[in-house]
Structures are given as C-alpha cells and as structure tokens.
C-alpha cells in the first residue's frame, strides 16, 4: 500500500504557554484523497494546516510527511517537501509589491524557471479563475474574491501533489465557489490529494467527500 501523504499520530499543539489547541490528533491524508476539514471558528483548522506546512512544530506527537518524520526535515529537504504542497492561505498572503501575474508565477520563479517557459501556463490559469484581465493589477486594488482566486492560482500553478486550502471560497459568491471547487475536484481526479478547510456547509454538500471535524481540540472523522 502507498504511504500516506500526511500522517498525524497523537499530535498535540499549544502556542507558547497557552492552552492546548489540538490534543491527540491522529489522521492521515491518503494519496489522491479529497477531504474537508471543518469545525467552528477558532477550532484550530489553520493551526493544523500550518503543522502540515512545517511552519509550526507540534508540542507532542509525531507528524510524517511523504513518509518522512517531520522533526527530521530541515534545510533543503524542507524546501523539497514544501514544493510538493500548494497552499491557499486564509489571509491569502499575496506579495503587495508584485502584480497578480507575478504573484501567481511566484512558485515557478522561485524554482528558477525561465519566465518564457511558464508565461502561457500562468495566463491560462489566471483565465480559468477569471483573473485574465487583472494580470497586471496589484493586490491592493483587487477585491477580496479576486485576491482569493489569485491565492488559489498560486497554490495550483506548480502542480503540487498535495493541496491545502484554508477557507478558499470564503470571499466569493456561491456560483464562483462552485467553479473553484470544481477546480479542486478536477485536480483531485488527476491524482492530487486535497484538503480543504471550510465551515461552508453548502460547499461541503456539493462533494461527496470525507469530512474531518475539529471540535474542542479533538479531531472526529465523519464519513
């Protein structure tokens, strides 16, 4: 059997000396799976995604990413693990001084690819998310939904093996949300593992997918 892309084993997390946000969280993201991560605001969805991204270290428990124990991943290995993931941040984290096009192309640029080799690819994806005409705009002048779509495009552009999307449809209308969701399901059909954090029930109802529910620091599986 293929090893899981992400495996949490009794993971606990607290920020500094604060209360434990996650206790004994155990779950796995299997290759090619599609899952929702849900739970009330403040339950720790973003925290869990940051643990997968290795931008937080667990207070206890073990995390494996692509079969590698997270605590042992550092330096160049850390970069290569991150290159296998695409993340849509809840707060987008677009770079304010770059155009929409440049923001979306960023993962390719940091992989030191020639601009000529990806220009068409980036424009095509921008068209797909409805930002074709906004390629030259700066994030400051984009609407919330436009920023969100730019963030989604940036997460997808490098064709990652695992997509982590934190509330990716929070700022768009239901029709656009459906369209964006289809983008994720299409990619999933092509083999990408997808984890979408959301508390949008209507969105979750559109896909027959496994749901992980965070509540009071515990993770429940709800098939």
């Amino acid at each position, binding site marked *: 059997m293929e090893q899981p892309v992400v495996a949490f084993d009794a993971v606990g997390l607290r920020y500094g000396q604060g209360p434990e946000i996650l206790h004994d969280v155990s779950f796995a993201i299997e290759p090619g799976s599609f899952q929702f991560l849900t739970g009330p605001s403040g339950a720790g969805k973003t925290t869990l995604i940051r643990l997968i991204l290795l*931008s937080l270290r667990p207070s206890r428990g073990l995390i494996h990413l692509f079969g590698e124990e997270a605590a042992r991943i550092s330096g*160049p290995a850390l*970069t290569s693990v*991150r*290159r296998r993931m695409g*993340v849509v941040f809840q707060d987008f984290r677009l770079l304010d001084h770059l155009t929409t096009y440049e923001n979306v192309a960023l993962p390719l640029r*940091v992989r030191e690819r020639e*601009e000529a080799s990806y220009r068409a690819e980036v424009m095509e994806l921008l068209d797909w998310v409805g930002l074709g005409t906004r390629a030259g705009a700066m994030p400051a002048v984009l609407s919330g939904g436009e920023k969100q779509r730019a963030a989604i495009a940036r997460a997808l552009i*490098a064709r990652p093996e695992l997509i982590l999307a934190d509330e990716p449809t929070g700022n768009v209308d239901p029709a656009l949300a459906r369209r964006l969701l289809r983008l994720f399901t299409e990619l999933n059909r092509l083999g990408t593992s997808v984890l979408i954090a959301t508390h949008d029930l209507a969105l979750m109802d559109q896909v027959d997918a496994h749901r992980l529910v965070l509540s009071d620091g515990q993770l429940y599986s709800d098939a």
Partner: protein
Amino acid sequence: MQNALHGRRGPGALVLSDPTATRSLFAIIAILTFLAGLAAMGAQIVAASSREWRSATAREATIQLRPQSGRDIEADLARVAALGRSAPGVADARVLPKAEAEALLEPWLGSGLDLSSLPIPRLVVLRLDLEAAPDLAALGSRVAAEVPGATLDDHGSWRARLSGLANTIIGVAAGLVVLVVAASGIAVGFATRGAMAGSRDVVDVLQLVGATRRFIVREFALRFLRLAMLAALCGGVAAGFAAPLLGTIAALASATDGADEAFLGAASMGWRGYPLIALVAATVAAIAGFVSVATAKRFLRQTRAT
C-alpha cells in the same frame, strides 16, 4: 542608478528596497571607500618617497669640515676631496663652494646676513658607486686621522629615522584601511538584516512557496553586493581624482625650496597608487558581499517561516 540598485527590471524585484536606507548605505560605503583609498594612496606616496630618498642618500655621503684656527680650510678641503676620490667606491668628490655652504644655512638664518666672519662648516660631497662596495667606515677614520675637524656622515641615522617614520605612517594607513573595510562590512550586515527583518512576510512567503535558502539569500545579498560595488566604485574614482591633489599638496607643503622636491615629489605618486585604490575598492565590495551573504544565511537559519 535606480536600475542598477534595484536589479532586474523584467519581473518586479522580489524584495522591495527602502530608498532611504539604500541611499544612506550607498553614501556610507562610498565615503568609507574614498577615505580608505586616500589612506592607501597616502601610504603609497610615503613609501615611494622614502624609498627614493633613501636610495638617493645612499648614493651620497658628506664630509664635514669645521674650521680650525690656524689651518687653511681650502687646503684641507682639497686634501679631504683627494682622499675621498682615491677611496674605493667613491665616484666623485666635490668641494661645496663657500657660497653654497652659506646658502644651505639661509633657511635657518635668513638671507642678507653677512656670514663671512662666522666659522661656517664646509662640506665635501661624495658621490658613491654602490656597485664598487665603498668602505665608508675606513674612509671616515682615515679622513679624521689626516685632517683635524673632519667627520664623515653617511646619512645612515637619517635613513633609519626616515624609514621608521615612513613605516609608522604606512602602518597607520594600513590600519585605517582595515578599519574602513570592517566598518563597511558592518554597515552592510546591518542593512541586510534590517532589510530581511523588514520584509519578514516576503521572506516567509518565499520559503512557503518553495524557495530555497540559497535563492532568498541571493535575492537579498545580490542587491547589497551590487550596491556596495557601485558605491565602492564611486568612492574609489573620487579617491583617484583626489589623489593627485593630495600629492600636489604634499609636494607644496614639503617643497619650501626647489631642492626639497625630491623628498615628497609630486612625481613620486606615480601610477602605482591607482591599482592600489582599485584594490581597496574591490576589497570593500567583496567584504560587503561576503558579509551580506553571511548575514542573510544567518537570518534564515535563525528564523522559521510562519
């Protein structure tokens, strides 16, 4: 300049630069390079002059004759000159005429003084042939024995004092250059750290979308290296233009009369100073680049992308 400082034009620079900080750093490095270049140039002038002067004085010795009552000084001078001429390694011996001897005292005593009644010491100037290994000690004792009041001066103590002075000046200048290079290194390190801390969110996002540390270090450090190179170039060029001025001032200051010009001659600056300035500027730029890279690496090691 704006383009050179901010790097590639095509896609927007990944790292924003703070124009005020950039200008300040540019000015600091340019000024420091200018000062270091001048210090190096000054040291080079002193070294060259001292070398020239030492070799000139090595080719010369003088025999001083103090007038003694009851002796014919002109006859003694002729005798001393003859002794000198016959000594091995002495190419020529010339009696300095009375007028010239008096002229030598002019700077101390002023002109228009009637010196004829004073017992002015007289000189015999020996031109030495260094190839023929002159034995000045032997000549000195011989002259002293045969002509009372005659002493030979080979300028050795002068040369020793002069090279001591020159070496001190060169040492101080070298120390200055080292301090300046260190100071510009510190300034660049400080600026790099400031830029990274100021763009912390950019650094984090770059790492989270898969940039290697190397890539990020390059984005930051290359900018500072380019800036330091340009600033060092400007400082170096300015020092290059100012250097002949320095030489001229030194020459003017030391050449109270024509004879002294050899000591700190304008000519002694030569062309050797320019490669030296270029070397100083290159060192400043290289150290700046090195420190910037090291600082950026350190920053990334110490922080975790969040």
